[in-house]
């Protein structure tokens, strides 16, 4: 009964993900496209939740939907010019620019189809419904991160730190500090 319900919820959520991901690409308005992407993120987090990883689900919402996408929309809101920018984009886009991307993504698509036919359907089904005993706690994630995966944690920390330093360096570029000293002198 519960498994059946979880399966139904999973299928509905997966459908939402596919539709909103498609709409992300096809939407004319940039902000609308980003909002469809937010819906995709929320649906992905629901799938994490169904699989028993409620911590990952919460982080997916907090970080992706709540912080990164907000910044995306923030920037597009500042640069967005409505119909004007749409016309500009149309002018920039030719079919010839998309040939490489189309080629690569069609290769990926055929690989996906191939893999789908190769794997038996039973194993795919059993992965969908996680038993309720397999709920992953924060403690499990912590011991995993600081045990076998500690090197990855250190590397990603270094990467983030360097990104932070770069951002500070760019915002303190000689041009802006020059303006500042001029303003102070006045």
């Amino acid at each position, binding site marked *: 009964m519960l498994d059946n319900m979880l399966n139904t919820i999973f299928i509905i959520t997966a459908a939402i993900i596919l539709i909103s991901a498609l709409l992300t690409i096809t939407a004319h308005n940039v902000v609308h496209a980003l909002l469809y992407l937010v819906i995709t993120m929320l649906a992905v987090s629901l799938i994490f939740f169904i699989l028993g990883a409620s*911590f990952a689900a919460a982080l997916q919402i907090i970080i992706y939907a709540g912080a990164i996408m907000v910044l995306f929309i923030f920037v597009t*809101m500042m640069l967005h010019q409505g119909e004007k920018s749409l016309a500009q984009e149309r002018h920039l886009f030719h079919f010839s620019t998309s040939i490489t991307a189309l080629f690569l993504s069609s290769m990926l698509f055929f690989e996906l189809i191939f893999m789908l036919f190769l794997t038996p359907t039973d194993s795919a089904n059993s992965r969908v419904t996680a038993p309720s005993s397999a709920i992953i706690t924060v403690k499990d994630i912590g011991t995993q991160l600081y045990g076998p995966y500690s090197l990855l944690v250190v590397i990603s920390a270094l990467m983030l730190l360097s990104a932070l330093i770069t951002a500070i360096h760019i915002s303190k570029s000689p041009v802006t500090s020059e303006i500042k000293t001029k303003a102070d002198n006045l």
Partner: protein
Amino acid sequence: MTSWLTPLIILIVLLLLGAWSIWLERRVLALWQDRLGPNRVGPFGLLQVVADMIKIFTKEDWVPPFADKVLFIISPMIVMIMTLLGFAIIPFAPNIQIAQFDHALLFLLAISSLSVYSIMLAGFSSNSKYALLGAMRTAAQMISYEVFMGLALMGVVILADDFSLSAIVAAQADVWFICYQPLGFVLFFIAGIAEIHRAPFDLPEAETEIVAGFHTEYSSMKFGMFFIGEYLGVILISSLITTLYFGGWQGPFLPPLLWFILKTGFFILFFILLRAAIPRPRYDQLMVFAWYILLPLSLLNLLVTGAVKLSLLG
């Protein structure tokens, strides 16, 4: 009480309280500023809310022709839904709680980060300069203050060893967490004010600078939803402060629910007092305050809490 009746009663009570706290704020604010406030409709002006509702429902519900219509209509709903969802995890009394949830605090952070969209979309879809300015201020302000909100909450999580709110309340049976986490409390309180953009951090709608900020173009009940959403936010943050730092429903002699209402009411009044007492800072001062002062302090709080806990255990 049956299981489906509790959420319904809580929802109705919350909506009534949200509307009624508008009257409370106007009355108390007037008291502190040597005025009378609304005292004409009903005893002590208590029915002012009803009069306001009649007025707001009969006003023209105008959608500007230059607006992005769908987003314009959706965005006031988002703030109401997100704030009301936040109440789902709050333990009002031992048996009165809508959802028992293991990662309740993370759920709360997720809800509060999603409510940014309401204001950003309102500002964007209005397609007017003042609304856009308000929305940009909001996005920067809320993203900045969310960081300290999360970091300040982690102090409580370290002490209680759990993310669920009922466990946090149970862990405060002997000593309230305000005694162990005074700095964390202050940080959470400041971040809470900024999250629900109340005065003195109401720069997104600073009426002396940018008309009414993100809801400049809104009228009728759509404006009313933003308005009541703000007061629901005040109630949510107040009840969170009660739950996380002041022992939740625990207290001697009186029944638990009454204790919860008393403590929460005190903080709601404190929010109103802040509006009466403190002037609004400049926008860059707000951001500098967040990143240069509150971020190091909240990291320090987390570090000291963790170190003390580890040294006491081992």
